[in-house]
């Protein structure tokens, strides 16, 4: 089972759709609403998101080694099947 990390914002609909995608399929995943983190932790997490995705936009989904920027169901499915 690949580890899944979802970096999200509490205000972003595609982030909610990504959560629903995993939940509706019973796939275990970790997620964090970056905008709701305490300031210091937020900065650290945003820096990490920027390092792996090159952007400061959400969602960013990490499946195993693969980084998916934005909500792309096809790429999520492919990454899960790899």
């Amino acid at each position, binding site marked *: 089972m690949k580890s899944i990390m979802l970096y999200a914002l509490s205000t972003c609909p595609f982030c*909610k759709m990504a959560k629903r995608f995993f939940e509706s399929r019973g796939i275990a995943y970790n997620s964090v609403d970056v905008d709701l983190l305490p300031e210091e932790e937020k900065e650290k997490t945003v820096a990490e998101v920027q390092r792996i995705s090159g952007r400061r936009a959400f969602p960013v989904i990490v499946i195993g080694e693969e980084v998916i920027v934005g909500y792309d169901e096809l790429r999520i499915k492919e990454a899960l099947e790899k």
Partner: protein
Amino acid sequence: MSAEKMLCPVCQVAFLVKEEKIPGKKIICPVCGAVLILEKERDFWVLKRPKDMTPEEEIRSRVENFARLRGYYFNEMKEPLIEALLKKYERYGDFYCPCKIDNIPENVCPCLETRQGSVERNGRCHCGLFWKEA
């Protein structure tokens, strides 16, 4: 009554205003779709954001004008995004992009990358508010 370049206080782009200048006249920014009001400050005409609109009326009219100007359409994601934009307004004081962490002028909806044509390239804006047929 000469045409004059005026600055949009939302997208910060200057555009030519050809209409007759009357205080309180409503002008729509051709770049971002913002509804603006003509006002005279000392000897200068300026464009201000409307004071008689609720935040919800303001953002709805802005995104609808922008979509009309660009030929974009909305889908079922529109309402969750309007709600998210209003949440951003409440929390951070302006309609910052609900899918970006930085609450800065270039991320005010419609954000800079959207104004610069990301919908043409990707079929939708990053958030999924504005869509265009491929």
